[in-house]
């Protein structure tokens, strides 16, 4: 069973510059909720953004990882003075 921490690390290792917050919301190690912020999402549709994250886990999604609920965000640009 993967832990929230493992999920987080794998997302951050696979998507350059990504920051992930991951929560195991049933405590059972198979239902996760993640908010991923990455510049790599720029210019991609929501579906493409989610696919980038799903692709990190391949067949584990729907298998060992029953659910990975996602929110994807673009990094906030530094405010221009």
């Amino acid at each position, binding site marked *: 069973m993967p832990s929230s921490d493992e999920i987080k690390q794998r997302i951050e290792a696979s998507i350059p510059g990504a920051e992930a917050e991951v929560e195991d919301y049933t405590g059972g190690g198979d239902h996760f909720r993640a908010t991923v912020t990455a510049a790599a999402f720029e210019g991609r549709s929501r579906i493409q953004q*989610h696919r980038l994250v*799903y692709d990190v886990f391949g067949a584990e999604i729907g298998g060992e990882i029953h659910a990975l*609920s996602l929110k994807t965000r673009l990094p906030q640009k530094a405010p221009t003075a």
Partner: protein
Amino acid sequence: MSSQPSTTQDLPMSSAQPSPAVEAPASSGENPIRDAINEAIAEHKVILFMKGTPEAPACGFSARTVAALQSLDVPFAAVDVLPDQRIRQELSAISDWPTIPQLFANGELVGGCDIVTEMCESGELAEALQ
């Protein structure tokens, strides 16, 4: 008076709108389930592949997606993927999307539960389903 080959089968459809039953293609395609899914997506403006039925969803994610659609009062067809494991496998192969539910509009994947819920809250969903 034509009889369908026994290898083809209808998808377990239920529909909030009166719609003709999905007919498994009579062609001797190698993958009748994939053909039937493609045909269902092409024939229905809004179609949801889910676990269970809109009246009795079998999974919280499917239930939330149905609720989002119902909140917009949009008619949609629904296919229960649970009766046959192959529906889910073929669907994911077609859509390149690993999880259920999957909502399609105008022949294209709109998203799963997260995206549909987010789009519903932001008002984008109504637009996408037009």
